[in-house]
């Protein structure tokens, strides 16, 4: 009989088919269901476009953070992201800041310097102008801090009750560092996995800000541009940086599982090294959630060649905001396509992708 891991690997290697009759919230949660929707329905249909197969290359890694376009010898990265969050404002940030930083970060972890953003606002009828103004100000401020310009966009208003106040979509373009070679296919056994700081702050902040759970914690969203950290990393270990990702929905576990699947390698995390703030750990313990599944909006993961790992870590730590960066594990040949967490006392567990929305465990 095959083990679970082998069975999962066999499924992952094959074609994904989307057979769900309806779209559920889980399809947007960034985990397995999202992957099935994108790889099983959206990509196959888009791949057929044009008929000459010329688009296929650009969609080769459909779950990567940005697509690459080569224009007259310059490699550009393009990405778009929509932001749906309730409440609109939360400790440490707001939807406007998220919309800028999220797209900036997708470009940054694609080894691209963010150049310009397009901004689309879908506003619900009845939204206070004051609220809208605050968000546009937040967008302007976040763009200024990230060193990127909002160069255009669109505005729509929908009926009352059709959008949680407002939805924001941003699209971004950036110039790719010509010396960077980041892709799952570049990753090798022995490479080190670096995370830029404590994980889970954003997801738990939002969960608590909704006020549905009577828990209070000194916690703020980590939303920020990670570009300065990425730039520091690339400057110190340019050709040693093999892969980067910002672990948003689905968290670190989902991002690393995608890497394990795409690279056909294994990733072993050192459980005790994974940085998690006390309030996040506490909330996760109480609610039966795994910090590795919780969303981040201001951290990134990098896989670095072993020879450059120390320099890479020092470089990220030397950038303000990167002091808490740490190596959390390494890439192994075995077990292929699997993420493990090993505790120092010898216990090992499989870290799976997020399945559906993270649902608190009560009973």
């Amino acid at each position: 009989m095959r083990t679970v891991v082998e069975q999962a690997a066999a499924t992952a290697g094959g074609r994904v088919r989307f057979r769900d009759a309806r779209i559920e919230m889980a399809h947007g949660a960034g985990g397995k269901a999202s992957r099935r929707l994108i790889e099983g329905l959206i990509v196959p249909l888009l791949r057929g476009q044009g008929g000459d197969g010329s688009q296929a290359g650009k969609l080769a890694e459909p779950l990567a953070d940005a697509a690459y376009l080569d224009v007259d010898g310059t490699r550009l990265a393009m990405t778009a992201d929509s932001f749906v969050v309730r409440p609109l404002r939360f400790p440490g940030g707001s939807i406007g800041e998220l919309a800028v930083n999220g797209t900036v970060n997708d470009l940054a972890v694609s080894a691209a310097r963010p150049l310009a953003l397009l901004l689309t606002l879908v506003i619900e009828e009845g939204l206070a102008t004051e609220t809208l103004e605050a968000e546009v100000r937040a967008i302007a401020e976040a763009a200024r801090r990230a060193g990127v310009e909002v160069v255009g966009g669109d505005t729509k208003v929908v009926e009352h009750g059709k959008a949680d106040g407002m939805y924001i979509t941003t699209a971004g373009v950036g110039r790719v560092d010509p010396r960077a070679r980041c892709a799952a296919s570049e990753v090798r056994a022995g490479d080190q996995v670096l995370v830029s700081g404590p994980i889970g702050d954003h997801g738990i902040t939002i969960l608590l800000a909704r006020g549905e759970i009577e828990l209070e914690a000194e916690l703020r969203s980590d939303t920020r541009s990670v570009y300065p950290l990425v730039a520091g990393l690339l400057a110190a270990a340019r050709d040693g940086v093999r892969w980067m990702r910002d672990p948003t929905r689905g968290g670190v576990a989902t991002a690393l599982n995608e890497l394990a699947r795409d690279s056909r390698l294994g990733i072993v995390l050192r459980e005790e090294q994974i940085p998690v703030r006390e309030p996040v750990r506490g909330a996760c313990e109480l609610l039966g959630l795994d910090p590795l599944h919780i969303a981040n909006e201001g951290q990134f993961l990098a896989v670095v060649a072993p020879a450059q790992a120390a320099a890479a870590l020092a470089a990220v730590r030397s950038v303000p905001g990167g002091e808490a960066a740490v190596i959390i594990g390494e890439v192994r040949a075995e077990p292929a396509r699997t993420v493990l967490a090993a505790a120092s006392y010898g216990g090992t567990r499989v870290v799976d992708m997020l399945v559906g929305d993270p649902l608190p465990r009560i009973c």
Partner: protein
Amino acid sequence: MKYVDEFRDPKLIRQAAEEIRRLARPGRHYRIMEVCGGHTHAIYRFGLEGLLPDNLELIHGPGCPVCVLPMGRTDDGLALAELPEVIFTAFGDVMRVPGTKGSPLEHKARGAAIRMVYSPLDALKLAEAHPDRHVVFFAIGFETTAPSTALTLLRARELGIRNFSVFCNHVTIIPAIRAILDSPGMRLDAFVGPGHVSTVIGCRPYEFIAQDYGKPIVVSGFEPLDILQSLVMILRQLAAGRAEVENQYARVVPWEGNLPALRALEEVFELRPYFEWRGLGFISQSALKLRDAFAEWDSERRYTVPGIRVTDPKAAQCGEVLKGVLKPPQCKLFGRECTPERPVGALMVSSEGACAAYYHYVHRAAAAASLER
């Protein structure tokens, strides 16, 4: 994290594991059941099985509320959810449990008014906020969660909130343990006793296990060190030929239980003559229903629920896994048709279910090489 980190201390964990290996007599096979799904989850989450000697086998018990709930009860609850005036509320644990026509989440996607709540009191608040609707709380769990349902019902009566009712699926742990002890072919040596349930019922109700059946039981906490220490205590009892109820989780579990919680249970609930459990069949006096004084708040009396018995999908062997007869990967559907994402059986849904725990955390021998520095 206080009260947690102390119980995850790598050095102490290694020492406890060594002590277990020292106590487990070669040539003897130990079958120890952890009754509670929370323990099953912790055993896999912390990779504890890999620390145990090969001749110590952990059998996963029935203490996972959504696992033992027969599908017909989920269907009955979801039939209520389809009524136009009803807002159906349940814990997150229940949201992915499959019914014949899909899980609560799938019903929600089709437009049913289904809300996840963190406490039955939140469901009551929802009823207050929506006087034109009727809020049903799908109550589930052992004695761990039953007191919060009881207190909510007492509050509903006190506040005179009448657009609220409870679809009660609360079950009690003792009859299930007795059923397992009485089932033929169950060769168990000892039990790791449930921790959370015992905070309510205390340790006394387990005395029959030691006295009548001659098996040790140690009530245990949920951290790695708790579980390993409980196994040490069990092995010491077995080595000395003792059979006693011991309380490893004394920092939380009072020997006599939580008397106010027990009083609330007594006031609101009475035992059903019998109740169906997945895998274990009908067990007499194993579940709770609302007393007549709370009939107004009893969904089963306010509405006609279909009450149809539904058998599990044919190929699914949830019952055998629940009884410990099969290990999860021995089920024909495990990891193929039945995964945490598209569960066929409830054991794959709850993170406390043996199948989900195996699926999420089980590791291959090749993977066991941890990062040693």
